């Protein structure tokens, strides 16, 4: 009896740890959706592909896919920078020409870019699941950091959680205490008024894309390490779940995205563990639909202007 309870509770704790890890990664991706939506009211469907790009770039730089290998830290840094740049490029090439077009046009373009990038990755890297070369990543990551009975917390999980917390704090500082952050918030409130006050809207939007995409790239690297699997469609499901998290938290709200990510990660792990694993993807869809139908502003969202 007692052992059964212990077993149950350790299973519960392990699920909790896994759920928090997963949730923090979703939060990292969700922030990218929510920031872009806040500034230009566009669901950037291609954001999941930026995340996939982060995973593929770091894999390629570590495994010598491009013909040369880099040390771990340098590879991660370079991948994140390229992701940030890719985000800016995505905006400049695909979205900026449509700023004055109907919203539907930009939304369809975003879907088109998502499909384009995903299949570009398929052409470059192939459909097979890639895994990181074990000798290229720091070996301590795969060791357990903490053992509580049967519950294992790996160093990788600790690193993921600390990275996410650190990045979120930095992001909060940027958004609330820098010039560019103030400009972002001003544009989110009223784009026209902000530009009349001398805010360079295009430049701020580029910064927003760079920040969001950089964070997405970090998330891609972390997930690539966590599951040790990198493949072209990985951005699709992660993107949907992170988007659901952003909607749950209230799209446009950064704290909302973080909370939404956490809730969704936990819901997925516990739903998968206790209800049915085959429907674990369905939880994200169901949450997304229910929130939109019942409370479209989410947990922290401000009210959206209709037909803006």
């Amino acid at each position, binding site marked *: 009896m007692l052992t059964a309870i212990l077993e149950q509770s350790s299973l519960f704790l392990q699920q909790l740890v896994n759920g928090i890890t997963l949730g923090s990664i979703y939060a990292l991706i969700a922030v990218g959706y929510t920031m872009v939506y806040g500034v230009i*009211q566009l*669901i950037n469907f291609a954001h999941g592909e930026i995340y996939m790009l982060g995973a593929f770039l770091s894999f390629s730089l570590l495994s010598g896919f491009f013909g040369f290998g880099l040390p771990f830290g340098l590879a991660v840094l370079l991948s994140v920078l390229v992701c940030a740049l890719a985000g800016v490029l995505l905006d400049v090439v*695909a979205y900026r*020409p*449509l700023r004055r*077009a*109907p*919203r*539907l*046009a*930009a*939304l*369809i*373009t975003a*879907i*088109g*870019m*998502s*499909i*384009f*990038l*995903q*299949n*570009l990755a*398929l*052409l470059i890297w*192939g*459909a097979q699941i890639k895994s990181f070369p074990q000798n290229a990543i720091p070996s301590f990551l795969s060791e357990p950091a903490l053992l509580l009975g049967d519950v294992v917390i790996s160093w990788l999980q600790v690193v993921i959680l600390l990275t996410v917390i650190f990045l979120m704090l930095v992001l909060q500082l940027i958004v609330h205490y820098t010039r560019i952050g103030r400009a972002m918030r001003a544009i989110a409130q009223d784009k026209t008024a902000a530009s009349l006050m001398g805010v360079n809207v295009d430049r701020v939007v580029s910064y927003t894309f760079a920040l969001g995409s950089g964070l997405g790239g970090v998330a891609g690297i972390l997930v690539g390490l966590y599951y040790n699997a990198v493949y072209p469609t990985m951005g*699709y499901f992660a993107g*949907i779940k992170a*988007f659901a998290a952003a*909607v749950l938290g209230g799209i446009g709200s950064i704290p909302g995205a973080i909370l939404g990510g956490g809730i969704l990660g936990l819901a997925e792990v516990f739903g998968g563990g206790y209800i*049915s694993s*085959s*429907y674990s*993807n*369905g939880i994200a*869809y*169901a949450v*997304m*639909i229910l929130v*939109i*139908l019942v409370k*479209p502003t989410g947990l922290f969202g401000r009210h*959206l202007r*209709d*037909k803006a």
Partner: protein
Amino acid sequence: MHLDDRLFSDKRFYLPLLAAVLVLPWLPMGICGPYVLRVATLTLVYMVLALGLNVVPGFTGLLDLGYVGFFGLGAYTAGLLTVHYQWSLWLVLPLAALNGALWGVLRGAPTLRLSDDYFAIVTFGFSELIILVIRNEHWLTRGPMGVPGIARPDFFGKVLDQPWQAFYLILFFLFLVLWVVVRIRSSRLGRAWFAIREDEIAAECVGVNVASYKIIAFALSAAIGALAGAFYARWFRFIHPDMFKFWESILILCLIVFGGMGSISGALLGALILVPLTEVLRIILPAELSNARYLLFGLLIVCMMRWRPAGLLPVQKE
């Protein structure tokens, strides 16, 4: 006068159209045999799908990202009814269309007050849920094993086992759907939809019952999608959850974006060009990379939105 309006009203259009349609399938038969006929039949299936999808984003201006859900729903409704009860196509098909319409209404009713992108997200999530249920409810759908051995279409007790018979069957359904869509488009209903598309609030102010007109659009669109699915199941004789992935929704959307959203002739032209192109790419690309053909569709969507947002055969504004 725009091509759409002439499709069924201009008498000069009837003869060339009829001739083309009757002669076309026979031309390839002599040169390339059944493969080309198969692609031609598939093209017609996608023409029906494009016409059906066109009703919601094209006529009412709401982006539907989950159309393949209704295609899959129709295919599984027809496939399972056929496998279990051996019913005739002419009973199964209307039932599948009805089931599609039912779910179209069930999906549509709660989304009435949603604006553009939220509507798109709900349609996407809904269709993913449909496919997830199809994949996981083994007792009903056999899940990832698919449903094999679905009976061929029949006609007054006679089994249509020749490929060209299936071609003419879907051609018949295409014309049926085309007729319905063209007629509705120029009716009071169609004008109400266009009013909603241009400005929902203004439409409501002049007395258009936005809610019920939207519901009708959802039901019609879903019924057409399910009808195409039902034919597809009886024609292809095997259905599998993987046939109804999100990419299919995007492919169908691409057809109408390419041809021109809201344009009926555009939807037909989009399918006529892009579906055979997909099949050619499927052959050219190695099997492992065959999905990379979607790259082209992604690029096509982006370029169309950038340089020709109204499509190849744009609807003329009055």
